[in-house]
């Protein structure tokens, strides 16, 4: 009987000891640990507009959600090709698994494609595709954007009205794509030849667009497709200043452009959410690093006007 009681006391004592040790153990050891993760390098073109800030924000937030490291650089402006080259080279020398580039020069991407292949780093383009190499692209379909702009101007403008395009760098794929599809579409709709469409390239900012638009208004141009929201806002400012009924269609879903559409200063806005582009870019890269497909990812775009923008915002 005594042995049985001794056994019980021993069991109870052991249980208590184990409990105390477990409790004691709770207060020691590793409290937090993060596993090794992917390192993704990003080189954008610039950070001078809400569109690019949106891309950066989308990339950084998505990287945090997926627990991947993101190292993001951008040159001072979208013409700084040399500056971007240094950054791309430095990132390819660093310990990264994938690189996303929005090239300042879409016609000269071969060098870093080869370098990335040599270092077995997966390469992607975002917002701006490569024109000389086949690199997976994440962004809107710029050909579709050009077509939407042409269709809208055709709808809004009387016959034989002059139309123009204000675009960025001619070495950048989205400029090339938008202009070519715009010209092609306007030709099919109105029978206008390529030469009948005024093209102003190498415009980067608000002021450039403002001055260019003034010239266009003076040249009796009735409709203009601006290849970025900042350019669209510049054109709208010149139209307002000159009291012109210039029909302006632009691109990029950013706050000031949306307000301009709501106020009627800009007639049409083709959606291109920088945040969505950034988000989709990181998601695509992570997916590829984890064995997914390495294809182009197109983000849908639509035309917003004063009539439907309320619905879109809701």
């Amino acid at each position: 009987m005594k042995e049985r009681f001794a056994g019980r006391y021993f069991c109870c004592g052991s249980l208590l000891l184990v409990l105390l040790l477990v409790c004691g153990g709770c207060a020691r050891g590793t409290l937090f640990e993060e596993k090794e993760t992917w390192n993704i390098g990003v080189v954008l073109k610039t950070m001078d507009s809400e569109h690019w800030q949106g891309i950066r924000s989308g990339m950084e937030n998505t990287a945090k959600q997926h627990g991947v490291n993101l190292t993001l650089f951008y040159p001072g402006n979208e013409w700084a090709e040399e500056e971007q080259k240094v950054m791309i080279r430095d990132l390819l020398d660093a310990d990264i698994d994938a690189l996303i580039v929005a090239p300042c020069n879409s016609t000269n991407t071969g060098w870093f494609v080869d370098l990335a292949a040599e270092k077995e780093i997966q390469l992607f383009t975002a917002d701006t595709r490569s024109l000389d190499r086949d690199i997976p692209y994440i962004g809107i379909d710029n050909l579709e954007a050009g077509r939407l702009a042409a269709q809208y101007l055709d709808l809004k403008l009387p016959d034989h009205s002059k139309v123009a395009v204000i675009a960025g760098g001619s070495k950048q794929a989205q400029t090339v794509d938008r202009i070519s599809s715009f010209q092609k579409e306007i030709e099919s709709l109105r029978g206008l030849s390529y030469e009948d469409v005024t093209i102003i390239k190498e415009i980067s900012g608000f002021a450039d667009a403002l001055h260019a638009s003034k010239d266009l208004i003076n040249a009796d141009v009735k409709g203009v497709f601006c290849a970025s929201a900042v350019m669209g806002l510049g054109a709208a400012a010149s139209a307002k200043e000159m009291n012109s009924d210039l029909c302006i269609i632009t691109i990029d879903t950013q706050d000031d452009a949306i307000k301009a559409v709501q106020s009627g200063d800009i007639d049409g806005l083709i959606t291109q959410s920088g945040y969505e582009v950034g988000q989709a870019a990181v998601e695509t890269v992570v997916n590829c690093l984890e064995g997914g497909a390495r294809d182009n990812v197109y983000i849908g775009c639509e035309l917003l006007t004063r009539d439907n923008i309320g619905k879109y915002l809701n």
Partner: protein
Amino acid sequence: MTFRLRIMTAILVVTLSGLSVFFFFTYYVATDLVESNYAKSLTESMQLRMEQIDGDMRNVYQKTVSLSVQPELIGVVDAYLKEYGQNAEGALKVSDYLRSQNDSPDLIDALFLYLSETDQIICSQEYRDIIEGVDSSQYIWTAKEGIGIKPLVSSDTGGDEMNTIYLYAKPVYSAEGEQVGTIAVSISERTMYYKLLDAGNLSEEYFLLDGEGYICSARQSPGADNHVSGLIDIPWDEYRTEVVISRDNGEKSICAMVKSSFTGFTLLGISEHAALVADLKQTQWLFTLMLFVMIILEVVFANKIADMLNKPLKRLIDAMKRVGRGDFAARTEADQGDEFFQLNSQFNGMVTQIDELISQVVDEQNHARQSELRALQYQIKPHFMYNTLNSIKYMAIIQGNERVGKQLSAFIELLEASLNKESDFSTLDFDLQLVKDYVSLQKYRYMGCFSMEYNISDEAKNCYVPRFLLQPLVENSILHGMDTKRNDNLIKIKANVSGGMLHIEVDDNGKGMTDEQKQKVLHQEADTKRQFNGIGVFNTRERLRLFYGQNMSFELQTELNKGTKYLIQFLADTELEEGI
């Protein structure tokens, strides 16, 4: 150990164990929770600090890259080398230019331009605008093709104090594509520390480690070869937070490490564990105090509870002791419904039963003693009389009185028969002979005022009957039924066998009995002090009942002044199973 003490001990052990476990568990869970929350908070805070460090480094990196490809810089360098002939004024112009490019003076410490042609470093800082004869082992960045995205941790490029700096450098090319020098942008370690690493309290400290684990920023400006392994003994190159115990003083610390994939730096945060759990220590003391208070209260309550539980048991024990001393009136009381009530009820019932059994045993013993005494008495009296009467009989015969001798002889036979204890049974014939002997004696006494009539079948004569079956009945008829004033008193004895049963009748025409006398004869035991006693009839009836049980009947019919009749029947048995 008494039951009460056991209860108290059990209550104290269980309660105090539970309380101790609860308090310890609560304390450790709280500590764990505080540590976890703090670790999370520390890690998040360090992530933010690291992101800011990365942001600053990125800005400096981009600034360096931007400057390296800036055409204006090439123009300034060309002018210095060619127009100014590398004179002091030209150097000042370059220094001014570099200073003008520092658009973040709160972050960027200095800009340096190394010119390979002149082997000079021109600095944006006025007080040391030019360093001649550059030693490439001291200024590593000048001998390289620039520095990638991971900053170079180096000692300052000049001045009296050798402070630590973080530096990016990129080659500068002329319009013709020839490298003319290197541009470098630096951040002071002190600037970085006070901007992003100063915790603001002594219990928390941050260390910035380079890619090889050397401390490159801390509260105390780090010296050369100051490796983190001299500080803590954990893997520093991982993204983790853990509790470590110092090798030097054994004190616990919480260490968190956040690594940057961009710079390759690791931010190490060390927080004193003692400071973290200082408030909890107070709570621990409070718990201990509460535990002591609880112990005191527990002893009081346990005592009370043990008393309460022990009370019915004590009552039961007292009652058992009283019963043990022979007090069978002792009983216990308990509240209904509980186990003690059942125990007490069983005990009370058991004591009652024992009391009844003991009373019964005592009665039986009294009866047995009385019977024994009476038997002995019966035994002595006949023997005494038998011996005496034998002497008288022989005297009477010697003296020639034959009649007296015959009477005595009959009486002696009667006595002999009564003293014969060999068997409880005799034949009816033998029993009738005893009756006749008895009647012979009584006729002498009553001068022949009664007569006997026997009507006995032969079959009945051979039946075995209990000894002295008829004598007591005849005696009763003679002594109490006979009217001595009459001469026609008749006692008739009939016996026959019918249906396997022996039927016997003893009938007299005497005085008969009142109801009271009848009841006494049938049910009462003998009263030896009185003249009239029914012991013979009662004994006869009782013996028949004992021998035959349900297979007999004994009936007494009597009527005052008419006579008395005994009707007896029982199993007729001519084979004696038990010898006479």
